[in-house]
């Protein structure tokens, strides 16, 4: 940290002015980042007539939740007009098992690769890690054929499999890097006492893994909930996740364009991850920086 207060040479008036300017600039940037959220919320609360007559930044004169109700219960996704709620539940049914399985496997992998090292453990880790960097376009075609052969194309099960397989490298990375810093003596002492591989994992390692479990769960949940590529490639009709449904609603060419419904749907899609971010921002940022090598 090198700040004006400590290291600036100006004093008095000029200093106060500089501080004022600094805050002004920061506030302007905040406005820029908040503007789309503001527009989303206000537009979703307006009626269509008000949207046509008013301006992008005007507050709704009459607040109405009709667009939210319509988005949730009636909006048309393809030929199905029963709202985005079906797809919300699709995403939930996809995200929960995929997050839990990939986190569990990641924890076990990380534990095995650091505390019960075998010959070649490092090479195996490096090979797993490679999966984080691969652009997923390169696996799309084989995956769609494999899912077809397995009979789980266009199903939530198929998407769970895909997200587990391609989430593994991240969860393994998180847990491996966390367990590396835990002293080996802890495990050695327990081994001498006669505890086995799984006993040590349950009794000693898992109880101290709280923070990294949170990081992994949040990272995986955000990735899986926000995914569009896999959802669009491997699902269709009413098995699609919410992001695919949102894109469908917005890009429907039939009928009148309902901007308020679009915005309400977008907010509904964004809310779960936003909530997670607001409630556990610290862990979200940790995941971002730990997994950041991947993008």
């Amino acid at each position, binding site marked *: *940290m*090198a*700040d004006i*207060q400590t290291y600036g*040479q100006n004093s008095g008036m000029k200093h106060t002015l500089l501080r004022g300017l*600094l*805050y002004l*600039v*920061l506030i302007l*940037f*905040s406005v*820029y*980042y908040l503007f*789309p*959220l503001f527009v*989303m919320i206000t*537009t979703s609360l307006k009626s269509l007539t008000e949207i046509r007559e008013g*301006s*992008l*930044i005007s507050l709704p004169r009459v607040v109405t939740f009709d667009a939210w109700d319509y988005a949730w219960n009636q909006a048309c996704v393809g030929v199905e007009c029963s709202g985005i709620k079906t797809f919300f539940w699709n995403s939930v049914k996809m995200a929960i098992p995929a997050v839990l399985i990939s986190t569990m*496997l990641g924890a076990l992998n990380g*534990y095995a690769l650091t505390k019960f090292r075998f010959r070649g453990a490092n090479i195996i880790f490096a*090979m797993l890690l490679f999966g984080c*960097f691969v652009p997923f*376009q*390169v*696996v*799309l*075609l*084989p*995956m769609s*054929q494999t899912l077809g052969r397995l009979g789980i194309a266009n199903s939530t099960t198929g998407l769970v499999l895909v997200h587990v397989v*391609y989430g*593994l490298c991240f969860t393994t990375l998180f847990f491996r890097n966390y367990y590396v810093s835990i002293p080996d003596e802890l495990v050695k002492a327990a081994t001498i006492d006669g505890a*086995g*591989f799984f006993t040590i994992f349950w009794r000693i390692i898992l109880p101290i893994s709280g923070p990294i479990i949170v990081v992994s769960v949040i990272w995986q949940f*955000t990735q899986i*909930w*926000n995914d*569009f*590529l896999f959802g669009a*490639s491997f699902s269709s009709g009413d098995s699609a996740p919410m*992001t695919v449904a*949102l*894109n469908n609603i*917005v*890009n429907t060419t039939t009928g009148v364009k309902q*901007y308020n419904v679009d915005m309400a*749907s977008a*907010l509904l*899609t*964004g809310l779960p991850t*936003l909530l997670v*971010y*607001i409630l556990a*921002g610290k862990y979200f*940022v940790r995941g971002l*920086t730990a997994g950041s090598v*991947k*993008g």
Partner: protein
Amino acid sequence: MGASSSTESNLMAGLQRNLSKIVVAPSFAASLFFVYGFILWTAWMAFSKSRMMPVYDWAGLRQYERLWQMERWHVAIENLLIFGGLFIVICLFLGCLLAVLLDQRIRAEGVLRTIFLYPMALSFIVTGTVWKWILNPGLGLEKMMHDLGWASFKFDWLVNSDFAIYTVVIAAVWQASGFVMAMFLAALRGVDQDIIRAAYMDGASLPRIYFGIIIPSIRPVFLSAIVVLAHLAVKSFDLVIALTGGGPGYSSDLPATFMYTMAFQRNQLGISAASAMMMLATVMAIIVPYLYSELRGGKKNG
């Protein structure tokens, strides 16, 4: 009786000894098949005559030739250069600026950080949807400016095939710049305070401290940020789909959307596979040297 129980206990001991390998094996097998196997599979398809259905007869470099003869692919590559270049440069600039501004003992720093970073939690589809609404020429920003009295204001980039790709830059910068800020801020906090104090004692001004000492000392973070952003740029797909749909026409196509269109809409599996291999090669060209230098540096330090 005795023999069988001893083989059993031998088996158990062996199992215990190998549990670690057994636990990792399924993930490793999945990785071998779903990552390495699939890459080879795609590579093979790119050498085949596949069009609508995958066929596996050798066609040499035919698909790559066809790919590079397509104007649409050249548009996608050009767009990637424009988009990637601007996206990286603007994100670095904004991220660095915001980090330095936030590093001035700001009151409510936590709140501001939260505001700058929240777009990163959103899906690119949500981001695309909202920017599409803001930038639409009919009722969005343009109308807002007209209402504010700027009657000649014109902003039709979203539907203008020469400028559509720049709207993708606008939305992508909004989403990712806060993340770059977080990376830089963490690095700024790690700079050795004694060096800064010493420079200050020598009479260096604040801008000189920043440009002469602090920014050079966080150079590795610039490299990491560039790699992360470049990687993001090459993989960009959702945002284009939600914002412009690759249009008007295919004027805002990126390699990722090109690959997807060829695979799932145009029934050109061979070309699609070839373009995916080109994307893989691009990402590897960025990542491999970076990881290599990182790992080597790590060994040196450790």
